[in-house]
């Protein structure tokens, strides 16, 4: 079998690439060397660990769904329409990417908290968000949403509108065009955005601890459990950290979009 020959990379480029790879991988190796393998099973199957893992998976999945429901329309509006202030809006939507998560948590508290902007309205409707699993999902969505919006908007811009124009010419209304043309064409970008959102939600810590609190089985996700266990049992914390890494890697591997060219 012959191999296609491509334009080679400059040789020096491999050095920083390798350094970068080592920089990312070495800390993972360091974690693995710290794991107390003899007790690994017991450490990660304790009641609190299982609760934390399940809660993390549940809330991250819910967050991903919420990100899709809110983020897909946002990305479409940003990519397919023009209106005054659009660039400002885009920057603001991306704000959670640079905002320290703890600040995000505070912002959510000032919005949905008992004394927050919407606090009174929520109280009237007898909805209590703080200290609930809902609060965890909101905190995770706040930090994860930009990832979905950014990757989907990029995919939409790359895909362009030519196919949509053709579809409209064939008599397809906007909804049909969206369902049968736009969405399938950007599916890889959407999947990538979903994976990123899920991964970000899985690792979310700061906004959650600030906004949602920490209670086993309700709001104490895996990262919070790791942080807590570190106080008393570093071995358990390391074991859980490895578990978190493995879960993230598995999710990313499973959902990795097929890179076939259209």
């Amino acid at each position: 079998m012959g191999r296609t020959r491509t334009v080679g990379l400059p040789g020096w480029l491999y050095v920083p690439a390798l350094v970068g790879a080592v920089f990312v991988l070495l800390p993972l190796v360091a974690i693995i060397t710290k794991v107390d393998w003899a007790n690994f099973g017991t450490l990660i199957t304790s009641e609190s660990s299982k609760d934390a893992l399940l809660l993390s998976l549940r809330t991250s999945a819910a967050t991903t769904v919420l990100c899709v429901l809110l983020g897909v329309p946002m990305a479409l509006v940003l990519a397919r329409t023009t209106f005054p202030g659009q660039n400002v809006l885009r920057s603001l939507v991306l704000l959670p990417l640079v905002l320290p998560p703890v600040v995000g948590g505070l912002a959510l508290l000032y919005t949905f908290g008992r004394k927050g902007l919407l606090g009174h309205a929520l109280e009237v409707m007898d909805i209590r968000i703080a200290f609930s699993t809902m609060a965890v999902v909101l905190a995770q969505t706040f930090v994860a949403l930009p990832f979905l919006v950014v990757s989907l908007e990029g995919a939409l811009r790359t895909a362009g509108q030519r196919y949509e124009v053709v579809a409209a010419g064939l008599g397809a209304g906007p909804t049909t065009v969206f369902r049968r043309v736009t969405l399938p064409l950007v599916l890889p970008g959407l999947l990538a955005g979903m994976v990123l959102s899920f991964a970000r939600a899985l690792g979310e810590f700061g906004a959650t601890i600030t906004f949602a609190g920490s209670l086993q089985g309700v709001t104490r996700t895996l990262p919070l459990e790791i942080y807590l266990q570190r106080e008393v049992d570093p071995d358990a914390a390391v074991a859980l950290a490895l578990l978190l890494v493995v879960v993230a890697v598995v999710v990313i591997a499973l959902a990795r979009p097929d890179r076939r060219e259209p």
Partner: protein
Amino acid sequence: MSLELGARVAERDVDASFEINTGQTVALLGENGAGKSTLLAVAAGLLRPERGRVVLDGQPLLDTDNGVDLPPHRRGVALLSQDPLLFPHLTVLDNVAFGPRSRGVPRRDAQQQAEHWLSQVGALDLAGRKPGGLSGGQAQRVAIARALAADPRLLLLDEPMASLDVEVTPALRQTLRGVLADRTAVIVTHDVLDALLLADRVVVLENGRIVEDGDTRVVLTRPRSRFAARLAGVNLLAGTWTGDHVELDDGGVLFGMAAEPLPQPGDRVVATFKPHAVAVYRDLPQGSPRNSFGVRIDELEPLGDLIRLRTEQLSADVTLQAVADLDLTPGTWAAFSVKATEIDVYRLA
């Protein structure tokens, strides 16, 4: 009257309008940037002109004076461009069934219709394939079937064969000829064969204005615009009829044969002659023929066993031997000479 299309787009300096009878196919000709695609975009609803009116079968699709502007999907106007743009995620069959399904036709029926149209364009064997694996010609066939399956009241074709290999063009043109026979359609093209074989009528655009509009054969045999002349492969010079000869706009005098309807002195006329009617000399000949021009050769282009010499305005077809004897290369000066009996003079409408 089936289609009435008129638009003014200041940004692109386009101001043109024409009409098409039901079942008629019009070839829209013109230089790049003359405004052809702009008019198609207005008809398809992809571009909103400052002022415009598109009426199809009595239904206004666009009427800026009365605030009518139907969205593209409600116009019944299908646009086929040089890029087939088949939906990459759908099979060929589903691509063609897309139009019917968008109209609410059940899946089964839509697929049957798709099969029908695929067989019409000779691409039924491709039904199960994904567009990624098709050749350019195959993809364009499928795109034609897809456009037809949508049952458009008006079909717009924007250089549908421009990006195809020369070998597949004749067969596809034949397919289009069958398909366009009884359809109301507008085809933008640069190819004289497209105009001759596919269109009943030719509309020529120059700088956003219509400069010629008429029966295809008439326009191509008696072109009145430079573009149509070049398309028809003839030389064309404009001027004023004196009753005896043509006073050319760029100066000079041309003697030719006035054609019916006979021009009156003072009428605007065009004089046309075929490139192979031109005799080429290295220096201006003495005496007859009278119609001689000093020209600078810009380009030499092989044309079968002849060479076509191009100057800024004129073309002449000469033998390879003549080129060698006269030592003609781009940049050299030569004399073109045409017998008066080879020149047709038409009155401009």
